[in-house]
């Protein structure tokens, strides 16, 4: 049986003819398969296998729990993850019920996200963002208030939510971050399910959109970061907004109340996300008017006037909060705008300068580790836009209008990304913008999947499996795939990586920092690399970290000799954790040279992390 070409579901179409959405083609009936028991087993077996493998991943991750940095996140877990992904595709192959597909998709993405939280003793990630979030949640759990002087002091929504879970469950902050955060982010497929249920969409297309929502992995997939949480809140606002615009009269008032609450949650939950949302929603009425000029929208500007009201409320709440309560964040925002306008010295270029020194293959490996899944989502979304445009006359009017609105949002986000590239202004957090853009790709990429499935279910299944496998290398950074330092410097080993994407907080570093806190007075000047400095912030808290005032210092010998410092915190890349500095100043031979220098005393040694005292 050939799948229908019509993308709309039963009832509501732009064209008057109605065609029931056809079910997927079943395998030819044989006498054996007609036996009820066989039918039941073949229906539930994939679900059982999926469930058991998911549970096994949890078990194995707990059993393999470790306190050091291994080769990559999926070390010792990879076979189970591989089988789990195959089971997921198998389930999708057999399952046609949209709500069940939503449950499986949410379980799939949640279990993958749980792996580092179960496998590592400390919350995954060593960047300053993770450290600030974790220490803020910890402070709320200890005192009921966030620490003063951080960007999140007056935008504490995410930390309040996780802090509450930690306090009530009486668990450590690392476990709350590693377990509760993935659970909450697992709501996104359900939000997309709720949104798509407001429209008349072909069931198969709807299923593909929901499947895509599980496969559109944000760039910060494994990390505690404000952006994914902001994405969740933006998605919630959009879901409630579009449901309200197109929903029945009975649910207008409750959806309005929920919508207003969601905007408050977004304003209090993540500052940058609410700012980005305002910029996008501000442009929507204008953009819709422009679009309407060129071709008639099925629902004339209804969504435009709704967007205007939404924009007004959001701007009033946002401005009030930022200017009167969250002044610190407001000043940071103003400074960023000023640095953009005045073309002041930019901290980071959009494209790292070292890119020109590497070969094509090395660049591809790095590119795929950072953008593999994003690239495929963007490609599928681009193809999907074309497919949806081609079938636009078969789309239901509401779905058609909603797609246009979402497309305009994607266009706005893409514009910001391209604009950042063209202006050379790298401060706008490139991966953050990508994260916002990726979450909307399912609405368009789903059409591409629908087309593949229409042609051949087998090809569709194989394509899904390939898509997941190729994405694994981005979402679980495959550190051994990153080029080694020998690509650029002959004297550096191949297993000393140019870039660390796999970033684990380890007991080596924790114990070294405990030593510093216990045995070294804050009046002394302390130097370290960037990762250690950020880890100190996380373990000591903002006040003590400020009191110690660790200064960031790379391990270049000339800088060490000339710098003013009393103690140096040193570690080797690998078991003790990563580095964010360039390879030539932190490779093993450099560390050995420093350790054997006659200018320093070694006062602490745990085999991977050291404390040096200047003579």
């Amino acid at each position, binding site marked *: 049986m050939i799948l229908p070409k019509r993308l709309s579901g039963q009832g509501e179409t732009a064209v008057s003819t109605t065609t029931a959405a056809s079910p997927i083609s079943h395998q030819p009936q044989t006498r054996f398969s007609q036996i009820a028991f066989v039918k039941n087993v073949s229906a539930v077996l994939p679900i059982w296998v999926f469930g058991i493998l998911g549970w096994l991943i949890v078990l194995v991750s707990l059993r393999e729990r470790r306190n050091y940095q291994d080769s990559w996140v999926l070390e010792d877990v990879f076979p189970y993850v591989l089988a789990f992904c195959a089971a997921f595709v198998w389930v999708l192959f057999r399952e046609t019920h949209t709500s069940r597909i939503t449950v499986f998709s949410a379980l799939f993405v949640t279990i993958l996200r749980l792996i580092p939280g179960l496998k590592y003793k400390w919350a995954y990630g060593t960047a300053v963002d993770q450290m600030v979030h974790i220490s803020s949640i910890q402070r709320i759990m200890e005192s009921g208030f966030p620490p003063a002087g951080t960007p999140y002091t007056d935008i504490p929504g995410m930390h309040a939510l996780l802090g509450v879970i930690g306090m009530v469950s009486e668990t450590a902050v690392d476990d709350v971050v590693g*377990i*509760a955060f993935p659970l*909450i982010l697992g709501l996104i497929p359900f939000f997309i399910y709720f949104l798509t249920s407001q429209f008349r969409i072909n069931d198969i297309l709807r299923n593909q959109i929901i499947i895509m929502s599980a496969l559109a992995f944000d760039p910060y997939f494994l990390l505690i970061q404000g952006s994914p949480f902001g994405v969740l809140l933006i998605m919630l606002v959009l879901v409630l907004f579009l449901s309200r615009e197109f929903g029945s009269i009975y*649910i207008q008032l409750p959806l309005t109340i929920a919508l207003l609450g969601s905007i408050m949650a977004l304003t209090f939950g993540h500052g940058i996300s609410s700012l980005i949302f305002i910029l996008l929603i501000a442009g929507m009425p204008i953009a819709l008017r422009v679009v309407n000029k060129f071709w008639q929208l099925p629902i004339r500007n209804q969504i435009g006037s709704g967007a205007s009201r939404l924009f007004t409320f959001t701007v009033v709440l946002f401005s009030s909060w930022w200017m009167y309560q969250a002044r610190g964040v407001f000043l940071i925002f103003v400074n960023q705008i000023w640095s953009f306008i005045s073309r002041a010295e930019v901290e980071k270029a959009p494209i790292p300068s070292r890119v020109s020194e590497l070969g094509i293959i090395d660049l591809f490996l790095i590119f795929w580790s950072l953008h593999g899944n994003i690239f495929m989502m963007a490609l599928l979304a681009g193809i999907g836009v074309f497919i949806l445009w081609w079938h636009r006359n078969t789309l239901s009017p509401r779905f058609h209008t909603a797609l246009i609105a979402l497309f305009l949002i994607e266009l706005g986000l893409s514009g910001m990304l391209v604009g950042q590239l063209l202006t050379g202004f790298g401060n706008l957090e490139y991966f953050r913008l990508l994260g916002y853009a990726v979450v909307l790709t399912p609405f368009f990429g789903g059409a591409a999947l629908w087309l593949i499935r229409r042609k051949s279910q087998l090809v569709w299944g194989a394509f899904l499996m390939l898509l997941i496998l190729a994405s694994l290398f981005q979402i679980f950074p495959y550190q051994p795939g990153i080029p080694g330092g020998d690509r650029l410097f002959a004297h550096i080993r191949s297993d000393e990586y140019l870039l660390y994407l796999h970033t684990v907080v380890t007991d080596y570093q924790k114990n070294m920092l405990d030593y510093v806190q216990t045995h070294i007075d804050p009046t002394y000047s302390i130097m370290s690399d960037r990762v250690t400095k950020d880890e100190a912030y996380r373990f000591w808290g903002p006040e003590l970290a400020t009191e110690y005032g660790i200064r960031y210092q790379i391990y270049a010998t000339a800088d060490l000799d000339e710098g003013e410092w009393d103690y140096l915190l040193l570690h080797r890349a690998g078991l003790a954790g990563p580095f964010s500095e360039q390879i030539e100043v932190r490779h093993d031979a450099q560390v050995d040279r420093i350790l054997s220098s006659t200018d320093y005393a070694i006062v602490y040694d745990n085999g991977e992390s050291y404390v040096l005292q200047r003579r």
Partner: protein
Amino acid sequence: MHPTFTLFRVLVTTGLVVLLPGYLLTYALFPLQVEFDGAQRFALSGGLGVILSIVIGTALIVLNIGLTPNSFLPTIGSITSVAVIVTWWRGGLGILRLGVQSAKLYSTIAFLLVLGVITAVFPSTRPLNNAEQYSEFYLIEQGANGLISRNENDVIMLKLSIVNNEQTKATYTIQVTHAGQTLHESEMISVVSESSWDGEIVIPFPEIENALTNPLEILLFREIDDEPYRRLTIWIGQDG
């Protein structure tokens, strides 16, 4: 607390603190004649639960009350209670259900409980099964500027500590050398797993020549090793 128990605690708490209030609020907010299927109800419950927690948590912080279990739980409990009362007033308590039939629900809960017990027992036989095995070795008191001086008795006192993270009992020796000469070798030091040893090593000062040009090397050996396992260095300072 063992990680498996932590997992369950966080799971259950997230459900109770986020999902349950949101779920009850969906019945209070939305008209009873609007039927949501299970997945829609779950989406709304999660969304409303997240909104409630963020707004209440932020309000408690901003109003200087503080976000504690004693402030948060009564607040969200009150809102949830109001939601239940509103649902009852609208005649909807009979509809309040988990969306599944009882037999399926009980068998699902029973299955999850069995799964949970197995999950709790299976990895909990060895906590942190893949913990890295290492020891820490450090000077409890450092000298000023990396230098250590003799005391009033003409000796150098080194206060040292060994922390055993080897996951098993370990035996160490400490050797102090200077310019290739062994000045001190300790007796065997036994340290139980997950504990530490603090001790002092006394070195008579007159034995050291060329003190300023060579560091004191304090080497830690494990019973099983021939090579130094850990190494500290300190410089000898001028008198006083």
